[in-house]
Protein backbone atom coordinates (compact mmCIF):
# COMPACT_ATOMS: atom_id res chain seq x y z
CA UNK A 1 0.00 0.00 0.00
CA UNK A 2 2.71 2.42 0.91
CA UNK A 3 4.40 1.65 -2.40
CA UNK A 4 1.26 2.72 -4.24
CA UNK A 5 0.88 5.96 -2.29
CA UNK A 6 4.57 6.61 -2.87
CA UNK A 7 4.06 6.13 -6.61
CA UNK A 8 1.04 8.45 -6.63
CA UNK A 9 3.02 11.01 -4.68
CA UNK A 10 5.88 10.76 -7.15
CA UNK A 11 3.52 11.13 -10.12
CA UNK A 12 1.84 14.11 -8.52
CA UNK A 13 5.17 15.81 -7.86
CA UNK A 14 6.29 15.14 -11.42
CA UNK A 15 3.09 16.70 -12.75
CA UNK A 16 3.41 19.70 -10.44
CA UNK A 17 7.02 20.33 -11.40
CA UNK A 18 6.32 19.87 -15.11
CA UNK A 19 3.33 22.23 -14.84
CA UNK A 20 5.41 24.82 -13.02
CA UNK A 21 8.06 24.51 -15.70
CA UNK A 22 5.43 25.11 -18.39
CA UNK A 23 4.14 28.15 -16.54
CA UNK A 24 7.64 29.52 -16.10
CA UNK A 25 8.65 28.94 -19.71
CA UNK A 26 5.35 30.47 -20.81
CA UNK A 27 6.18 33.55 -18.77
CA UNK A 28 9.66 33.78 -20.28
CA UNK A 29 8.21 33.31 -23.76
CA UNK A 30 5.63 36.02 -23.13
CA UNK A 31 8.44 38.45 -22.46
CA UNK A 32 10.97 37.28 -25.07
CA UNK A 33 9.06 36.25 -28.19
CA UNK A 34 9.22 38.69 -31.10
CA UNK A 35 5.62 39.30 -32.15
CA UNK A 36 2.11 39.30 -30.76
CA UNK A 37 1.08 35.89 -32.06
CA UNK A 38 4.06 33.92 -30.82
CA UNK A 39 3.71 35.62 -27.44
CA UNK A 40 0.10 34.55 -27.39
CA UNK A 41 1.23 31.02 -28.10
CA UNK A 42 3.47 31.16 -25.02
CA UNK A 43 0.55 32.40 -22.93
CA UNK A 44 -1.58 29.59 -24.33
CA UNK A 45 0.96 26.97 -23.23
CA UNK A 46 0.94 28.47 -19.77
CA UNK A 47 -2.86 28.47 -19.60
CA UNK A 48 -3.66 25.01 -20.90
CA UNK A 49 -0.70 22.70 -20.36
CA UNK A 50 0.77 24.44 -17.31
CA UNK A 51 -2.51 24.86 -15.48
CA UNK A 52 -3.67 21.41 -16.60
CA UNK A 53 -0.57 19.65 -15.28
CA UNK A 54 -0.67 21.54 -12.00
CA UNK A 55 -4.35 20.70 -11.55
CA UNK A 56 -3.63 17.05 -12.41
CA UNK A 57 -0.90 16.99 -9.79
CA UNK A 58 -3.27 18.47 -7.24
CA UNK A 59 -5.95 15.93 -8.16
CA UNK A 60 -3.56 13.13 -7.27
CA UNK A 61 -3.07 14.79 -3.88
CA UNK A 62 -6.79 15.22 -3.13
CA UNK A 63 -8.08 13.17 -0.22
CA UNK A 64 -11.81 13.54 -0.88
CA UNK A 65 -13.80 12.91 -4.03
CA UNK A 66 -15.47 16.32 -3.69
CA UNK A 67 -12.10 18.04 -4.06
CA UNK A 68 -11.40 15.88 -7.09
CA UNK A 69 -14.70 16.86 -8.72
CA UNK A 70 -14.11 20.55 -8.06
CA UNK A 71 -10.61 20.37 -9.55
CA UNK A 72 -12.03 18.56 -12.58
CA UNK A 73 -14.60 21.31 -13.03
CA UNK A 74 -11.89 23.97 -12.83
CA UNK A 75 -9.85 22.05 -15.40
CA UNK A 76 -12.84 21.85 -17.71
CA UNK A 77 -13.52 25.55 -17.32
CA UNK A 78 -9.90 26.41 -18.13
CA UNK A 79 -9.85 24.12 -21.14
CA UNK A 80 -12.99 25.79 -22.45
CA UNK A 81 -12.19 29.41 -21.72
CA UNK A 82 -8.48 29.66 -22.35
CA UNK A 83 -8.41 28.52 -26.00
CA UNK A 84 -11.52 30.60 -26.64
CA UNK A 85 -9.96 33.73 -25.24
CA UNK A 86 -6.76 33.06 -27.20
CA UNK A 87 -8.86 32.71 -30.33
CA UNK A 88 -10.78 35.92 -29.66
CA UNK A 89 -7.53 37.73 -28.91
CA UNK A 90 -5.92 36.57 -32.15
CA UNK A 91 -8.98 37.53 -34.14
CA UNK A 92 -9.09 40.94 -32.54
CA UNK A 93 -5.38 41.42 -33.27
CA UNK A 94 -5.90 40.52 -36.94
CA UNK A 95 -8.81 42.94 -37.15
CA UNK A 96 -6.71 45.57 -35.47
CA UNK A 97 -4.05 45.22 -38.18
CA UNK A 98 -1.40 43.08 -36.47
CA UNK A 99 0.24 40.56 -38.80
CA UNK A 100 2.45 37.66 -37.70
CA UNK A 101 6.16 37.98 -38.42
CA UNK A 102 7.15 35.53 -41.12
CA UNK A 103 10.57 34.03 -41.88
CA UNK A 104 11.77 36.89 -44.08
CA UNK A 105 11.04 39.77 -41.77
CA UNK A 106 12.35 38.01 -38.68
CA UNK A 107 15.11 40.13 -37.24
CA UNK A 108 18.25 38.40 -36.06
CA UNK A 109 17.43 39.30 -32.51
CA UNK A 110 13.86 39.45 -31.33
CA UNK A 111 12.74 43.03 -30.97
CA UNK A 112 10.12 43.93 -28.47
Amino acid at each position, binding site marked *: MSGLTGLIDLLSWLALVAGSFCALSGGVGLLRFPDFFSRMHAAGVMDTLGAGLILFGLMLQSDHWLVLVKLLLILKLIW*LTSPTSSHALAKAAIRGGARPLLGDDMPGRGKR
Partner: protein
Amino acid sequence: MEMLVDVFLLGLLVATAVAISSTKDLFASIMLTGLYSLISAAFFVLMDAVDVAFTEAAVGAGISTLLMLSCMKLTGQYEPKPHRHRRLLGLVVVSVTGVLLLFGTLDTPNFGDDHSPIQDHLAPHYLTKSMEEIGIPNVVTSVLASYRGFDTFGETVVILTAGIGVLALLGFSPKRQSDDLDSLVAPMHHQKILRVVSKLLIPPILLFALYVQFHGDFGPGGGFQAGVIFAAAIILYAMIFGVHVARQVFRDGAIRLLAALGVLIYGSVGLLSFLSGKNFLDYSVLSDTPQHGQHWGIMLVEMGVGITVAAVMLIIFFTFSARVDKRERDGDENQRQ
Protein backbone atom coordinates in the same frame (compact mmCIF):
# COMPACT_ATOMS: atom_id res chain seq x y z
CA MET B 1 8.49 31.40 3.13
CA GLU B 2 5.05 32.93 3.41
CA MET B 3 6.70 36.25 4.15
CA LEU B 4 8.53 35.95 0.82
CA VAL B 5 5.27 35.40 -1.07
CA ASP B 6 3.69 38.34 0.81
CA VAL B 7 6.52 40.66 -0.14
CA PHE B 8 6.47 39.45 -3.75
CA LEU B 9 2.71 40.01 -4.10
CA LEU B 10 2.85 43.43 -2.44
CA GLY B 11 5.74 44.36 -4.74
CA LEU B 12 3.62 43.34 -7.73
CA LEU B 13 0.80 45.52 -6.36
CA VAL B 14 3.11 48.53 -6.14
CA ALA B 15 4.45 47.89 -9.65
CA THR B 16 0.91 47.64 -11.02
CA ALA B 17 -0.10 50.85 -9.28
CA VAL B 18 2.89 52.69 -10.75
CA ALA B 19 2.07 51.29 -14.20
CA ILE B 20 -1.56 52.42 -13.86
CA SER B 21 -0.59 55.95 -12.99
CA SER B 22 2.06 56.23 -15.68
CA THR B 23 0.09 54.96 -18.67
CA LYS B 24 -2.00 57.34 -20.73
CA ASP B 25 -3.89 54.55 -22.46
CA LEU B 26 -7.11 54.11 -20.54
CA PHE B 27 -7.68 50.62 -21.96
CA ALA B 28 -4.34 49.48 -20.56
CA SER B 29 -4.99 51.13 -17.23
CA ILE B 30 -8.42 49.47 -16.92
CA MET B 31 -6.82 46.10 -17.61
CA LEU B 32 -4.12 46.86 -15.04
CA THR B 33 -6.81 47.78 -12.51
CA GLY B 34 -8.32 44.34 -13.03
CA LEU B 35 -4.88 42.82 -12.54
CA TYR B 36 -4.44 44.87 -9.37
CA SER B 37 -7.68 43.41 -7.98
CA LEU B 38 -6.63 39.90 -8.92
CA ILE B 39 -3.30 40.28 -7.13
CA SER B 40 -5.07 41.70 -4.07
CA ALA B 41 -7.41 38.72 -4.17
CA ALA B 42 -4.41 36.37 -4.15
CA PHE B 43 -3.00 38.33 -1.23
CA PHE B 44 -6.30 38.03 0.67
CA VAL B 45 -6.25 34.26 0.13
CA LEU B 46 -2.81 34.17 1.68
CA MET B 47 -4.22 35.99 4.69
CA ASP B 48 -7.01 33.38 4.97
CA ALA B 49 -9.69 35.92 4.06
CA VAL B 50 -11.28 33.73 1.39
CA ASP B 51 -14.62 35.54 1.37
CA VAL B 52 -12.98 38.92 0.83
CA ALA B 53 -10.76 37.44 -1.86
CA PHE B 54 -13.79 36.01 -3.62
CA THR B 55 -15.54 39.37 -3.54
CA GLU B 56 -12.45 41.17 -4.74
CA ALA B 57 -11.98 38.74 -7.63
CA ALA B 58 -15.64 38.85 -8.66
CA VAL B 59 -16.22 42.58 -8.21
CA GLY B 60 -12.80 44.13 -8.71
CA ALA B 61 -11.32 41.94 -11.41
CA GLY B 62 -14.60 40.90 -12.98
CA ILE B 63 -17.49 43.23 -13.19
CA SER B 64 -15.92 46.60 -12.46
CA THR B 65 -13.39 46.02 -15.26
CA LEU B 66 -16.33 45.34 -17.54
CA LEU B 67 -18.24 48.41 -16.42
CA MET B 68 -15.17 50.61 -16.78
CA LEU B 69 -14.60 49.26 -20.29
CA SER B 70 -18.16 50.08 -21.26
CA CYS B 71 -17.65 53.51 -19.72
CA MET B 72 -14.47 53.96 -21.73
CA LYS B 73 -16.54 53.46 -24.88
CA LEU B 74 -18.19 56.78 -23.94
CA THR B 75 -15.15 58.76 -22.93
CA GLY B 76 -12.47 57.79 -25.44
CA GLN B 77 -9.36 55.70 -25.03
CA TYR B 78 -6.65 58.23 -24.25
CA GLU B 79 -6.16 60.49 -21.31
CA PRO B 80 -5.68 64.14 -22.33
CA LYS B 81 -2.38 65.73 -21.43
CA PRO B 82 -2.83 67.73 -18.22
CA HIS B 83 -1.64 71.32 -17.83
CA ARG B 84 1.70 71.76 -16.18
CA HIS B 85 0.48 73.67 -13.12
CA ARG B 86 -2.28 71.11 -12.60
CA ARG B 87 0.33 68.39 -12.67
CA LEU B 88 2.27 70.20 -9.98
CA LEU B 89 -0.86 70.61 -7.89
CA GLY B 90 -1.58 66.89 -8.26
CA LEU B 91 1.94 66.02 -7.14
CA VAL B 92 1.58 68.22 -4.06
CA VAL B 93 -1.80 66.70 -3.12
CA VAL B 94 -0.53 63.16 -3.63
CA SER B 95 2.65 63.76 -1.64
CA VAL B 96 0.83 65.37 1.27
CA THR B 97 -1.72 62.54 1.37
CA GLY B 98 1.02 59.95 1.13
CA VAL B 99 2.99 61.47 4.00
CA LEU B 100 -0.16 61.69 6.12
CA LEU B 101 -1.00 58.07 5.40
CA LEU B 102 2.52 56.94 6.23
CA PHE B 103 2.30 58.97 9.43
CA GLY B 104 -0.99 57.24 10.19
CA THR B 105 0.55 53.79 9.88
CA LEU B 106 2.84 54.58 12.84
CA ASP B 107 -0.16 54.23 15.14
CA THR B 108 -1.56 51.02 13.67
CA PRO B 109 -0.71 47.68 15.26
CA ASN B 110 1.92 45.47 13.67
CA PHE B 111 1.03 43.15 10.80
CA GLY B 112 -0.57 40.01 12.25
CA ASP B 113 -0.41 41.26 15.85
CA ASP B 114 -2.81 39.10 17.88
CA HIS B 115 -3.10 41.69 20.68
CA SER B 116 -4.26 44.56 18.52
CA PRO B 117 -7.54 46.14 19.72
CA ILE B 118 -9.54 44.65 16.86
CA GLN B 119 -8.59 41.15 17.96
CA ASP B 120 -9.57 41.26 21.63
CA HIS B 121 -12.71 43.40 21.59
CA LEU B 122 -15.56 41.73 19.71
CA ALA B 123 -13.79 39.23 17.48
CA PRO B 124 -13.37 36.53 20.18
CA HIS B 125 -17.10 36.66 20.90
CA TYR B 126 -17.95 36.26 17.22
CA LEU B 127 -15.48 33.43 16.76
CA THR B 128 -16.40 31.42 19.85
CA LYS B 129 -20.14 32.06 20.16
CA SER B 130 -21.14 32.16 16.49
CA MET B 131 -21.80 28.42 16.19
CA GLU B 132 -23.97 28.47 19.31
CA GLU B 133 -25.87 31.69 18.57
CA ILE B 134 -26.18 31.59 14.78
CA GLY B 135 -25.43 27.98 14.02
CA ILE B 136 -23.77 28.24 10.61
CA PRO B 137 -20.20 27.11 9.93
CA ASN B 138 -19.00 30.19 8.01
CA VAL B 139 -18.32 32.86 10.65
CA VAL B 140 -17.84 35.52 7.97
CA THR B 141 -21.42 35.10 6.83
CA SER B 142 -22.78 35.20 10.36
CA VAL B 143 -20.83 38.38 11.12
CA LEU B 144 -21.75 39.98 7.80
CA ALA B 145 -25.42 39.10 7.71
CA SER B 146 -26.38 38.85 11.36
CA TYR B 147 -24.05 40.48 13.89
CA ARG B 148 -23.26 43.38 11.59
CA GLY B 149 -26.45 43.12 9.57
CA PHE B 150 -27.10 46.82 9.83
CA ASP B 151 -23.76 47.65 8.15
CA THR B 152 -24.55 45.26 5.33
CA PHE B 153 -27.95 46.89 4.96
CA GLY B 154 -26.13 50.17 4.53
CA GLU B 155 -23.87 48.66 1.88
CA THR B 156 -26.85 47.33 -0.04
CA VAL B 157 -28.46 50.76 0.04
CA VAL B 158 -25.18 52.25 -1.23
CA ILE B 159 -25.29 49.91 -4.22
CA LEU B 160 -28.90 50.86 -4.93
CA THR B 161 -27.89 54.51 -4.67
CA ALA B 162 -25.13 53.94 -7.21
CA GLY B 163 -27.67 52.47 -9.61
CA ILE B 164 -30.03 55.39 -9.06
CA GLY B 165 -27.16 57.81 -9.57
CA VAL B 166 -26.22 56.28 -12.92
CA LEU B 167 -29.87 56.33 -13.98
CA ALA B 168 -30.26 59.95 -12.89
CA LEU B 169 -27.19 61.02 -14.86
CA LEU B 170 -27.47 58.91 -18.00
CA GLY B 171 -30.82 57.15 -17.94
CA PHE B 172 -32.96 59.74 -19.66
CA SER B 173 -32.27 58.71 -23.22
CA PRO B 174 -35.31 59.02 -25.44
CA LYS B 175 -37.17 55.76 -25.97
CA ARG B 176 -36.07 55.15 -29.52
CA GLN B 177 -34.44 51.78 -29.11
CA SER B 178 -37.70 49.93 -29.43
CA ASP B 179 -38.42 51.27 -32.93
CA ASP B 180 -35.53 49.76 -34.84
CA LEU B 181 -34.56 46.75 -32.77
CA ASP B 182 -34.28 44.45 -35.75
CA SER B 183 -31.99 46.71 -37.69
CA LEU B 184 -29.32 46.40 -35.02
CA VAL B 185 -27.14 43.39 -35.76
CA ALA B 186 -25.53 41.68 -32.79
CA PRO B 187 -22.05 43.16 -32.52
CA MET B 188 -20.35 39.75 -32.32
CA HIS B 189 -22.24 38.18 -35.16
CA HIS B 190 -19.11 36.98 -36.92
CA GLN B 191 -17.60 35.43 -33.76
CA LYS B 192 -18.90 31.88 -34.16
CA ILE B 193 -16.59 30.28 -31.60
CA LEU B 194 -17.35 32.89 -28.97
CA ARG B 195 -21.05 32.35 -29.52
CA VAL B 196 -20.81 28.58 -29.17
CA VAL B 197 -18.58 28.65 -26.10
CA SER B 198 -20.61 31.28 -24.31
CA LYS B 199 -23.76 29.31 -25.01
CA LEU B 200 -22.04 26.39 -23.31
CA LEU B 201 -20.82 28.49 -20.40
CA ILE B 202 -23.71 30.78 -19.51
CA PRO B 203 -25.94 28.12 -17.89
CA PRO B 204 -23.14 26.83 -15.61
CA ILE B 205 -22.28 30.42 -14.67
CA LEU B 206 -25.89 31.10 -13.67
CA LEU B 207 -25.95 27.83 -11.73
CA PHE B 208 -22.68 28.73 -10.04
CA ALA B 209 -24.18 32.08 -9.02
CA LEU B 210 -27.05 30.30 -7.32
CA TYR B 211 -24.62 27.89 -5.64
CA VAL B 212 -22.59 30.82 -4.32
CA GLN B 213 -25.78 32.51 -3.14
CA PHE B 214 -27.09 29.59 -1.13
CA HIS B 215 -23.79 28.03 -0.10
CA GLY B 216 -22.65 31.20 1.66
CA ASP B 217 -23.59 29.71 5.03
CA PHE B 218 -21.08 26.90 4.64
CA GLY B 219 -18.28 28.25 2.51
CA PRO B 220 -17.06 31.48 0.98
CA GLY B 221 -19.85 33.21 -0.85
CA GLY B 222 -23.00 35.18 -0.33
CA GLY B 223 -25.28 37.70 -1.92
CA PHE B 224 -22.68 40.17 -3.17
CA GLN B 225 -20.59 37.66 -5.08
CA ALA B 226 -23.62 35.75 -6.34
CA GLY B 227 -25.30 38.90 -7.60
CA VAL B 228 -22.19 39.97 -9.44
CA ILE B 229 -21.67 36.53 -11.03
CA PHE B 230 -25.32 36.38 -12.10
CA ALA B 231 -25.08 39.82 -13.66
CA ALA B 232 -21.81 38.85 -15.36
CA ALA B 233 -23.50 35.92 -17.10
CA ILE B 234 -26.25 38.21 -18.42
CA ILE B 235 -23.71 40.81 -19.51
CA LEU B 236 -21.72 38.11 -21.34
CA TYR B 237 -24.91 37.15 -23.13
CA ALA B 238 -25.62 40.78 -23.96
CA MET B 239 -22.14 41.33 -25.36
CA ILE B 240 -22.15 38.25 -27.56
CA PHE B 241 -25.76 38.16 -28.75
CA GLY B 242 -26.60 41.85 -28.66
CA VAL B 243 -27.71 44.12 -25.86
CA HIS B 244 -31.20 44.55 -27.29
CA VAL B 245 -31.83 40.79 -27.06
CA ALA B 246 -30.85 40.72 -23.40
CA ARG B 247 -32.97 43.80 -22.75
CA GLN B 248 -36.02 42.04 -24.11
CA VAL B 249 -35.78 39.59 -21.21
CA PHE B 250 -34.45 41.95 -18.56
CA ARG B 251 -36.70 44.90 -19.24
CA ASP B 252 -35.77 48.29 -17.83
CA GLY B 253 -38.80 48.54 -15.59
CA ALA B 254 -38.33 45.03 -14.26
CA ILE B 255 -34.68 45.42 -13.25
CA ARG B 256 -35.36 48.80 -11.64
CA LEU B 257 -38.13 47.17 -9.65
CA LEU B 258 -35.85 44.26 -8.70
CA ALA B 259 -33.09 46.60 -7.54
CA ALA B 260 -35.51 48.25 -5.16
CA LEU B 261 -37.11 44.93 -4.20
CA GLY B 262 -33.83 43.55 -2.83
CA VAL B 263 -33.43 46.46 -0.44
CA LEU B 264 -37.12 46.18 0.42
CA ILE B 265 -36.72 42.49 1.37
CA TYR B 266 -33.74 43.33 3.55
CA GLY B 267 -35.51 46.22 5.26
CA SER B 268 -38.73 44.26 5.74
CA VAL B 269 -36.89 41.51 7.59
CA GLY B 270 -35.52 44.21 9.87
CA LEU B 271 -38.93 45.78 10.35
CA LEU B 272 -40.49 42.40 11.07
CA SER B 273 -38.12 41.76 13.95
CA PHE B 274 -38.65 45.38 15.02
CA LEU B 275 -42.42 44.90 15.17
CA SER B 276 -42.06 41.64 17.07
CA GLY B 277 -40.47 43.51 19.92
CA LYS B 278 -36.79 42.79 19.23
CA ASN B 279 -33.98 44.91 17.85
CA PHE B 280 -33.85 45.90 14.18
CA LEU B 281 -32.53 42.92 12.18
CA ASP B 282 -32.58 40.55 15.16
CA TYR B 283 -33.62 37.43 13.29
CA SER B 284 -34.31 35.22 16.29
CA VAL B 285 -38.03 36.07 16.14
CA LEU B 286 -38.48 34.67 12.65
CA SER B 287 -38.94 31.08 13.74
CA ASP B 288 -39.61 28.90 16.80
CA THR B 289 -36.01 28.59 17.94
CA PRO B 290 -33.63 31.57 17.79
CA GLN B 291 -31.05 29.60 15.79
CA HIS B 292 -33.57 28.57 13.18
CA GLY B 293 -34.74 32.16 13.00
CA GLN B 294 -31.17 33.26 12.33
CA HIS B 295 -30.96 30.82 9.41
CA TRP B 296 -34.14 32.24 7.91
CA GLY B 297 -33.01 35.81 8.44
CA ILE B 298 -29.60 35.26 6.90
CA MET B 299 -31.08 33.50 3.89
CA LEU B 300 -33.61 36.28 3.33
CA VAL B 301 -31.21 39.19 3.65
CA GLU B 302 -28.60 37.47 1.48
CA MET B 303 -31.31 37.01 -1.12
CA GLY B 304 -32.14 40.70 -0.90
CA VAL B 305 -28.47 41.59 -1.34
CA GLY B 306 -28.09 39.25 -4.30
CA ILE B 307 -31.16 40.60 -6.10
CA THR B 308 -30.17 44.23 -5.61
CA VAL B 309 -26.55 43.70 -6.65
CA ALA B 310 -27.43 41.75 -9.80
CA ALA B 311 -30.12 44.23 -10.82
CA VAL B 312 -27.96 47.31 -10.22
CA MET B 313 -25.05 45.85 -12.20
CA LEU B 314 -27.41 45.18 -15.09
CA ILE B 315 -28.87 48.69 -14.81
CA ILE B 316 -25.43 50.26 -14.98
CA PHE B 317 -24.30 48.13 -17.92
CA PHE B 318 -27.49 48.63 -19.91
CA THR B 319 -27.50 52.37 -19.27
CA PHE B 320 -23.91 52.71 -20.46
CA SER B 321 -24.49 50.59 -23.53
CA ALA B 322 -27.70 52.44 -24.43
CA ARG B 323 -25.69 55.63 -24.27
CA VAL B 324 -23.01 54.19 -26.58
CA ASP B 325 -25.73 53.01 -28.96
CA LYS B 326 -27.35 56.42 -28.97
CA ARG B 327 -24.07 58.18 -29.61
CA GLU B 328 -23.22 55.88 -32.52
CA ARG B 329 -26.64 56.40 -34.04
CA ASP B 330 -26.39 60.17 -33.62
CA GLY B 331 -22.98 60.01 -35.27
CA ASP B 332 -24.48 58.12 -38.21
CA GLU B 333 -27.22 60.70 -38.61
CA ASN B 334 -24.75 63.56 -38.51
CA GLN B 335 -22.70 61.90 -41.22
CA ARG B 336 -25.79 61.48 -43.38
CA GLN B 337 -26.64 65.12 -43.01
